[in-house]
C-alpha cells in the first residue's frame, strides 16, 4: 500500500496564550468550509457563568447553530474543551476532554466526557476550547501544534479507514520521534456509515510503547466529525508538570491532590481493585441484584454472567499502569494485549484491545445473550476501530434481536442473518456491515428511533410493541442498567438532558438496594443534587470515578453517604486552589445548575426540552411481556397486593401486567412533577424566568425563547 500523503491547505501562526489559574481565555475556531482559522477571547462573564469544559462547549454551540440546524449542516460545530482543572498532574482523574455537538440521534446537544491527552494538550497549546464548523471538500487533518505555535489544516490521502491504525500512523508522523507529545482524535469508517459514531482520543503509553485510546462514545459525535470530512485532529504539546496550569495556590493543590491520591492508593486494593479490574467488578454485582441487562433489558440476571465477570478480566487484562491521564491513581483504563480477532479485517492479527469496561461488557455481551468474553473483546476492538459507540451498538442490536425473536422482523429483512439472542457470529457480521457501510448493518446503525420507523413502515412490524421494547429516549440508546425496580433511576435516565446515559444520575443502589429514597420528594432531591454534581466534573475537565467509586472508610457513617461529602469538600478546595475563585460544595452545585439549566433551554431551542421529551419506553419502567412478568411473578404479585392494594385473585397474567403498568406509568409522571418543581421548572419541564435570572443565564435570546414558549414567571 502507498503511504499517506499530506498537503497543507491552511495555516495560522499564533502567539500562545499562557495558562493562568487553569485558563487561557482563548478559543480556537476552525471553519473547514473556507479554511478560516481564528482565535476568540473568552470574557469574564462567560468564564464565570459557563466555568469551562462542557459549559464552554454549549456556549460555543449555542452561538453556532440556529433552531433549524440539523446535525449535518455545516454550521453545526464539534466543540472540544478541557476545563480549568484539566491537565493537573497530581489530582486523580484530571485529564478529561468534553466534546459536544448537535447529535444525529437526538437532534439536540450531546456531550461526552473522554480520557486521553487531547484536552490538556489543547489547553497547554493556548486554547480553553476548540470549535470546528463547516465542511472540508476532501478529508483533512487539523493539527494544533502548541510547541511551534501553529494551527494547520492538511489534506490527507492514503490513511487507513480505521481509527486504530490511523491514530498510530499520525502519532508516528507528527510525533517525529516523540510520540508522547501527540494526542489524536479520530473516528473511522463505521462512524461515517452509521449515526452512532464515536471519537477515539489517544495517548501514548510509554511503558507499552503503543498508542492507547478512550472513546467519546455517546450520541454520534464521530458521525458529525466524519461528515465534516475530518480524518483526525492532532494536538502536540511537550512538557507537562503541576505548574502547567499555573494554579493560584500550589501549596493547597499539592495538599489536596496528595490526600485524594493517597487515599485511592490505600483503599482501591481493598475495595473494587479498579487499578487491576477497571469497572468489570460491576458485572457480577449487577447480576446478583437482578440489574444486569440481559436479552434487551428483559431480565437482570443470567446463570452464565460470571463468564463476563471480574475473575475472567483479571486474567485477560494486560498488567501495568493504565491511567488515561498523568497522575491518575485509579488507573482503570485497562486493555487486552495480543488479542487475535477471529473475524473482520484484523482477523488472525495480534491487536491491543482498549477495554472492555462494564458498559461494553453488558451492552455487547449479556444484553445480546452473549456470554463469551472473547467475543465481547472483539466487539470492543471493532467498535473502536470503526468508530462506533459500543453502548448504542449493543442496545440497538439487542432491540433488533428481540424484534427477530418476536417475529417482528425475519431473515428476509436481515439479509439472511439469524439474529436471535446469543448468535455471536451474526452479531459480529452486523458490526462489520456497519464498517463496510452495507447490508442490514446500515439500518441498525441508524439507531433505535429510526429503526422503529423503518421496521413499521417497510417491514410491517407492530409499532406499539417496538415502542415498548426499543430502549431509547430522546433518540439516544439506553446505557446498561435495568431500571424496572428503581423509579429514581427511571428518572435518572428519562430526565437526563442528553438522553438515557447514567452519567447524570446513578441511583439504583441508593433507591432499590438501600431504600434511602422512599418518597417522591427524596427522589426529586436526589434527581436534583446528583445530576448537578455530576455535571460539574464535565465543566472542569475531570473524571467522576475518583469521587465515588473508591470511598473513605468512614463514609458510610456520614449523614449522606452517597454524596461522599469528604470528596466533595476536596473538590471545592481543588477548584479554589487552581482557579483562585474561592468556592464551597454548594458553590459547585450552583456552577453546574447554571450550565444544566442552560442545556435544558438549549434543548428547547432545538425543538425539544419539555415534558413530552422526558418519556421513556415501558421496558425501562416495568415488565412488557407476560413472560417477563412470570419470570418475577412473586415480586410483581406482591407489589400489586401490598403497594397498590389490588385483589389479584383470579386475574390472568395479562390483566395483572396491565394493572401494574398503569400504576407504574402514573408514578413516573408524579416523579416528573416532583423533579421539575425541585429544579425550578414549570410543569412542562421548562426552567422558569425566576430560575434563569437566579442563575445569571437571562441572556436576551434565552428570555426571548422562554417568552415564545409562554414562560413569563
Amino acid at each position, binding site marked *: 500500500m502507498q503511504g499517506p500523503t499530506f498537503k497543507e491547505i491552511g495555516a495560522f501562526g499564533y502567539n500562545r496564550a499562557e495558562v493562568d489559574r487553569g485558563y487561557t481565555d482563548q478559543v480556537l475556531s476552525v471553519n473547514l468550509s473556507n479554511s478560516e482559522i481564528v482565535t476568540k477571547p473568552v470574557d469574564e462573564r462567560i468564564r464565570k457563568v459557563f466555568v469551562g469544559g462542557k459549559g464552554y462547549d454549549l456556549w460555543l454551540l449555542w452561538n453556532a447553530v440556529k433552531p433549524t440546524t440539523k446535525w449535518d449542516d455545516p454550521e453545526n460545530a464539534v466543540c472540544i474543551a478541557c476545563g480549568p482543572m484539566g491537565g493537573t498532574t497530581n489530582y486523580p482523574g484530571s485529564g478529561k476532554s468534553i466534546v459536544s455537538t448537535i447529535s444525529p440521534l437526538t437532534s439536540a446537544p450531546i456531550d461526552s466526557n473522554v480520557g486521553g491527552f487531547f484536552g490538556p494538550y489543547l489547553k497547554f497549546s493556548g486554547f480553553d476550547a476548540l470549535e470546528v464548523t463547516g465542511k472540508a471538500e476532501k478529508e483533512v487533518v487539523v493539527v494544533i501544534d502548541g510547541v511551534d505555535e501553529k494551527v494547520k489544516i492538511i489534506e490527507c490521502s492514503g490513511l487507513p479507514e480505521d481509527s486504530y491504525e490511523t491514530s498510530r500512523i499520525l502519532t508516528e508522523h507528527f510525533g517525529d520521534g516523540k510520540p508522547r507529545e501527540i494526542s489524536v482524535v479520530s473516528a473511522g469508517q463505521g462512524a461515517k456509515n452509521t449515526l452512532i459514531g464515536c471519537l477515539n482520543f489517544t495517548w501514548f503509553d510509554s511503558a507499552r510503547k503503543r498508542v492507547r485510546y478512550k472513546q467519546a462514545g455517546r450520541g454520534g459525535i464521530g458521525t458529525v466529525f466524519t461528515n465534516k470530512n475530518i480524518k483526525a485532529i492532532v494536538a502536540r504539546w511537550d512538557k507537562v508538570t503541576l505548574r502547567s496550569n499555573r494554579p493560584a495556590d500550589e501549596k493547597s493543590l499539592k495538599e489536596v491532590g496528595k490526600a485524594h491520591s493517597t487515599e485511592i492508593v490505600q483503599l482501591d486494593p481493598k475495595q473494587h481493585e479498579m487499578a487491576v479490574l477497571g469497572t468489570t467488578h*460491576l458485572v457480577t454485582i449487577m447480576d446478583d441484584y437482578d440489574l444486569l441487562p440481559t436479552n434487551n433489558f428483559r431480565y437482570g440476571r443470567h446463570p452464565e454472567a460470571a463468564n463476563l465477570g471480574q475473575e475472567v478480566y483479571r486474567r485477560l487484562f494486560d498488567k501495568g499502569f493504565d491511567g488515561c491521564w498523568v497522575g491518575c491513581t485509579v488507573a482503570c483504563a485497562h486493555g487486552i494485549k495480543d488479542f487475535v480477532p477471529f473475524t473482520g479485517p484484523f482477523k488472525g492479527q495480534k491487536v491491543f484491545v482498549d477495554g472492555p469496561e462494564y458498559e461494553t461488557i453488558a451492552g455487547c455481551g449479556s444484553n445480546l445473550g452473549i456470554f463469551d468474553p472473547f467475543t465481547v473483546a472483539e466487539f470492543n476492538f471493532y467498535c473502536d476501530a470503526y468508530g462506533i459507540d459500543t453502548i448504542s451498538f449493543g442496545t440497538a442490536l439487542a432491540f433488533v434481536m428481540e424484534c427477530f425473536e418476536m417475529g417482528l422482523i425475519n431473515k428476509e429483512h436481515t439479509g439472511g442473518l439469524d439474529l436471535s439472542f446469543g448468535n455471536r457470529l451474526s452479531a459480529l457480521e452486523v458490526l462489520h456491515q456497519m464498517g463496510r457501510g452495507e447490508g442490514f448493518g446500515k439500518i441498525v446503525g441508524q439507531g433505535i428511533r429510526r429503526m422503529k420507523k423503518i421496521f413499521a413502515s417497510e417491514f410491517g412490524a407492530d409499532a406499539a410493541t417496538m415502542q415498548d421494547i426499543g430502549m431509547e429516549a430522546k433518540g439516544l440508546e439506553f446505557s446498561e442498567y435495568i431500571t424496572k425496580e428503581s423509579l429514581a433511576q427511571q428518572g435518572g435516565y428519562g430526565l437526563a438532558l442528553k438522553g438515557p446515559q447514567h452519567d447524570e444520575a*446513578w441511583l439504583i443502589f441508593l433507591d432499590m438496594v438501600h431504600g434511602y429514597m422512599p418518597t417522591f420528594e427524596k427522589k426529586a432531591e436526589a434527581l436534583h443534587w446528583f445530576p448537578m454534581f455530576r455535571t460539574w466534573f464535565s465543566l472542569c475537565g475531570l473524571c467522576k470515578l475518583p469521587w465515588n467509586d473508591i470511598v473513605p472508610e468512614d463514609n458510610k457513617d456520614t449523614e449522606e453517604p452517597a454524596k461522599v461529602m469528604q470528596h466533595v469538600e476536596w473538590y471545592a478546595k481543588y477548584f479554589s486552589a487552581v482557579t483562585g475563585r474561592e468556592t464551597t460544595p454548594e458553590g459547585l452545585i450552583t456552577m453546574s445548575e447554571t450550565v444544566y439549566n442552560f442545556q435544558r433551554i438549549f434543548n428547547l431551542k432545538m425543538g425539544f426540552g419539555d415534558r413530552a421529551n422526558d418519556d421513556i419506553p415501558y421496558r425501562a419502567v416495568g415488565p412488557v411481556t407476560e413472560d417477563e412478568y412470570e419470570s418475577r411473578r412473586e415480586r410483581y404479585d406482591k407489589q400489586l397486593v401490598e403497594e397498590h392494594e389490588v385483589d389479584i385473585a383470579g386475574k390472568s397474567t395479562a390483566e395483572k401486567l396491565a394493572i401494574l403498568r398503569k400504576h407504574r406509568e402514573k408514578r413516573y409522571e408524579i416523579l416528573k412533577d416532583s423533579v421539575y418543581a425541585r429544579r425550578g421548572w414549570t410543569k412542562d419541564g421548562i426552567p422558569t424566568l425566576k430560575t434563569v435570572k437566579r442563575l445569571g443565564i437571562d441572556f436576551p435570546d434565552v428570555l426571548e425563547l422562554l417568552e415564545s414558549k409562554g414562560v413569563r414567571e
Partner: protein
Amino acid sequence: MIKVKDRKIPWREGMTVADVLSEIGDPYPYAVVRVNEKSVSRPDFERTTVPDGAEVYPIPMVAGG
C-alpha cells in the same frame, strides 16, 4: 483466623459472610463484601462460606455507577 478490615477474628468451619458481619457487630447493610479476590453480594451473604485465612472487606456500595 480471618482478617476483617484491620481486625482479626477466629475462623470456624462453615462460617458464612453473614456470620462474619454479625461477629464483628457491624449492623450496616453492606451491599457487597470482598472475600479475598471475590465480590459477594448481599443476597448471597448467607450461603457463601469464608475460607480460613481469608481477608474480608465489607463495601457499602451506595455510590458508583
